[in-house]
């Protein structure tokens, strides 16, 4: 076996990562639990308050609004995004001309920063100057201040969220479809199966791993939505589009209630872990079935 230097080298190779991980991930996780049990404004040392922050969370109607909004954003973006992505992936799996171009164009919004995306939509939706309202009026839909109206602000952010995420779902589904052997479809054709039956009985079941993966990652990402909301509406008007992360940032870096914000962060972490554990549950059950 290797001697001398070679005994230390494995540790040296992982050291930078492990050290950085410890300082910027591991310690912060423990710290966030501690902070959530204190009152801390950054000006003086944290004061131990036990579960007070958590019991305040239970009665904070704005935080409840943020949780409900995040749940809406989750439902509103994940399912439509995946459904549209699946349809597009199916269209793109046909042998048509110009597929690469369509694929690139549909994926394009996914690479642009959420700030630039938000800026573009701020312009599109501007009630006085933007092109969306005149376009809608052409189709007989009355225009309004979509982002500035509490009745529609969250829904408008959701539509933009779907718009940015479709390309990724499409690419992952497309990769899945391309790994399905052509012979399965040929056999089904010989049995006289229609295009739709092939989709429902061959494509959809075989895409289960991709579906599960997309569902989990999109869910986790929707729990963390911040940039879009921050730039488009700032969480307003009147908290109508605020989310869990907007509340965390507001409470910590604007109001300096670090302990209270930490309790919200623990809530977000718990929600994320629950979703991830369910994924493992479903994933391992699937493996057992196979």
């Amino acid at each position, binding site marked *: 076996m290797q001697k001398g230097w070679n005994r230390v080298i494995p540790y040296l190779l*992982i050291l930078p990562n492990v050290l950085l*991980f410890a300082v910027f991930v591991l310690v912060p996780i423990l710290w966030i639990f501690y902070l959530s049990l204190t009152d801390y404004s950054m000006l003086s040392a944290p004061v131990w308050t036990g579960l007070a922050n958590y019991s305040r969370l239970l009665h904070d109607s704005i935080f409840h609004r943020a949780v409900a909004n995040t749940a809406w954003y989750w439902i509103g973006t994940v399912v439509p995004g995946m459904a549209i992505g699946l349809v597009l992936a199916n269209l793109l799996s046909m042998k048509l001309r110009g597929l690469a171009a369509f694929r690139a164009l549909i994926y394009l919004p996914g690479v642009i920063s959420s700030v630039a995306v938000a800026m573009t939509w701020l312009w599109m939706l501007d009630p006085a*100057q933007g092109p969306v309202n005149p376009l809608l009026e052409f189709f007989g839909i009355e225009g309004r201040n979509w982002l500035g109206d509490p009745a529609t602000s969250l829904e408008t952010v959701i539509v933009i969220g779907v718009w940015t995420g479709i390309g990724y779902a499409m690419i992952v589904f497309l990769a899945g479809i391309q790994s399905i052997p052509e012979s399965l479809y040929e056999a089904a054709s010989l049995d006289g199966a229609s295009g739709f039956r092939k989709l429902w009985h061959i494509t959809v079941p075989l895409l289960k791993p991709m579906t599960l993966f997309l569902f989990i990652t999109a869910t986790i990402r929707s729990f963390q939505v911040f940039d879009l909301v921050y730039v488009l509406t700032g969480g307003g008007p009147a908290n109508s589009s605020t989310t869990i992360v907007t509340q965390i940032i507001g409470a910590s870096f604007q109001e300096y209630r670090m302990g209270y914000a930490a309790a919200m962060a623990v809530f977000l972490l718990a929600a994320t872990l629950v979703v991830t554990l369910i994924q493992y549950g479903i994933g391992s059950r699937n493996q057992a079935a196979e």
Partner: protein
Amino acid sequence: MKLSKLERTAAYLALALFSAATVLPLLTAFFTSMKGDEEFSLGAMRLLPASWHPENYARAMRMGDWPTYFKNSAIVTAVAVAGSLAFNSLAGFSFARLRFKGKQPIFLTLLVGMMVPAQVVVIPQFLILKSIPLFGGNDWLGAGGNGWLDSYYALIVPELAGAFGVFMARQFYLQFPRALDDAAYIDGAGYLRLFFSVYLPQSGPLLATLGIFKFVAVWNDFFHPLIYTNSEAMRTLQLGLQVFRGEHQVQYNLLMAASLLVSLPIVVMFFVFQKQFIRSMVASSVKG
């Protein structure tokens, strides 16, 4: 699959419709960036500019210190990409090919860390960056000043702690046959020689994938610069776009010009490396 003419037409129509839905807003942004100021006061809506004003791009760059924003984003992205590639590939190699005590528990801890959202740890990270000793006016106990906050360190160093990158690198290096290592050992190579002369030359696909991920993540990052910096001199491009907001009248032609310029490097990279780009997105889903 054989398609009938009708199916083919329907498919094209649907694809064209969806492509239009993704591209039209971006195209509108481009046309808007070329419009003259006077077009906005007229109120008449038209897609194409009445007259073209490419000088809008130069004008937009004069609102705010854009050379500095570009420089900051470029430095932070370049160093974060280079640093994380080095750290991730070395650690991934060590976890995949070398034997050492405590390997499994350390790797498992990293895996758990992958699931923790950045937004959850941002408060303690901020406090840690603020109390780095002997930086930014801090004493050796880390008190008194701002530490690494509002510096390149705050934007770069936490980005290097990538559990996801280590995981991808380990998966990649696990694919090689054991015989490859044994041959190198028989030739008298040590671990470092094994990495640098056997594995590194084969790492092209891995480094491309990780590099693309990091580039996009850091270049597009808005969250961390927003919280870890506050001075004009440390602003990155994504923060710079905010310059155009806050006033009562937004000059949309200039705002769109700046948004497109900020997106340009990513879009160019996307079209040049389209194949790699898409492959790396898929790799993250299949392996991740």
